[in-house]
């Protein structure tokens, strides 16, 4: 077997699990949680449909005044550290903790305001009674406040193509944690 063929074969073997969407999910995949997400385009799908490429996942809500804009900034800041090819391979998913208000129109507004490329960014809401489960697998804590705001922890979680958690960061803002960025680059290799 020549070297070129060996490489091609190795590439195939690496690519195979990511494309085998019908293979059973690993037990440590967050996509094991049976939950439906409705995105900014109004499409409802099981969130396991996000399987197939590495993703950054975080939680937010659109009416948030403080940290949530920072979560979008954080995603963008990590994207900026990547090559164009790397950017194309990484999906960014922000899940609302406020489904009552974050219907597709509210999500779409953020997509437009923040000029998010929907080829890479997905903003979506779970059903109201599944929010704490989604937060549970992502390790995010929150409390709905009397005035409709939320008190919550902020994190971006890096998932591999099958939904296994590879890394997480709670460092929000325009200067991402270099270790986390390195983990993202590693996942895109």
């Amino acid at each position, binding site marked *: 077997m020549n070297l070129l063929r060996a490489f091609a074969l190795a590439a195939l073997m690496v690519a195979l699990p990511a494309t085998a969407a019908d293979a059973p*999910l690993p*037990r*440590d*995949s*967050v996509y*094991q*949680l049976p939950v439906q997400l409705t995105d900014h385009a109004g499409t409802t799908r099981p969130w396991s449909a996000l399987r197939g490429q590495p993703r950054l996942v975080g939680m937010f809500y659109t009416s*948030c*005044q*403080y*940290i*949530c804009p*920072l979560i979008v900034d954080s995603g963008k800041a990590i994207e900026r550290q990547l090559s164009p090819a790397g950017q194309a391979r990484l999906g960014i998913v922000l899940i609302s903790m406020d489904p009552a208000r974050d219907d597709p129109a509210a999500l779409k507004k953020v997509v437009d305001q923040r000029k998010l490329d929907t080829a890479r960014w997905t903003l979506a809401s779970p059903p109201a009674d599944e929010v*704490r*489960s989604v*937060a*549970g*697998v992502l*390790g*995010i*804590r*929150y*409390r*709905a*406040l*009397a*005035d409709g*705001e*939320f*008190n*919550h*922890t*902020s994190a971006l979680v890096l998932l591999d193509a099958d939904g296994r*958690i590879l890394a997480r960061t*709670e460092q*929000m*803002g325009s200067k991402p944690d270099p270790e986390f960025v390195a983990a993202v680059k590693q996942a895109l290799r």
Partner: protein
Amino acid sequence: MIRRAATIALLLALPVAGVVAGNGAGGDYATLPGGSFRSALDYEDIPGNVRVAPFAMMKRPVTNGEFLAFVQANPQWRRDRVPSVMAEQRYLSHWAGPLELGTDATAAQPVVQVSWFAAAAYCEARGARLPSWNEWEYAAAADETRRDARKDPVWRERILAWYSRPSSSALPRAGLQTPNAYGVQDLHGLVWEWTDDYSSLLVAVDSRKQGDPDNARFCGAGALSMDDRDNYAVLMRVAMLSSLDAPDTTANLGFRCVKDLP
């Protein structure tokens, strides 16, 4: 890390029940009237009392025997099949096998080593849900005769005495303690219990960072603090719950379910 260590210390100090006669019948519920209630927690955004709607609460925590029946009917919750994102490695590890209790887990003992996901799934399968923190605290404020015994120093000490006993001995059966004024047993002195909103208890270490621009971990205001600093028993519960993640299990953490009342 410090928070973890503190939790472990708390868990080591777990209760062994004061044993009184009476054996709770399986899985039945006590009815609790709603009410306005002064939580030991101080909610920045809710001045004054919290309101609790009428609800029904299991008279005692769910037992190994009951949880085994649930796992038999719902094999996706077997310890060898459950997704690890929904229940960590120690899930049901005190059982002899995936469908076998064995000698270290009797059917009448409260089930422990259950994750929040597993506890919530059990309640859902029973047409119920996990209690909110407010509901749990409301029910647990009662002693045998009074609906709110929290100001009584004697009762406070009695609860604390349970918490300070070593937990190395086996758990007693569920339903041995005298029912409280609502007819609910074992809220104190047996196991810790999950609440549905355990992850909304953003207190202690977390809330100190509130408003710190260098470590803006939280969105918005609304931090919790302890309003009733002498209520150590509740404080320990909150500290424990606020340190847990949803897949976590411990050797002293169980649960019970509640239902809404029409």
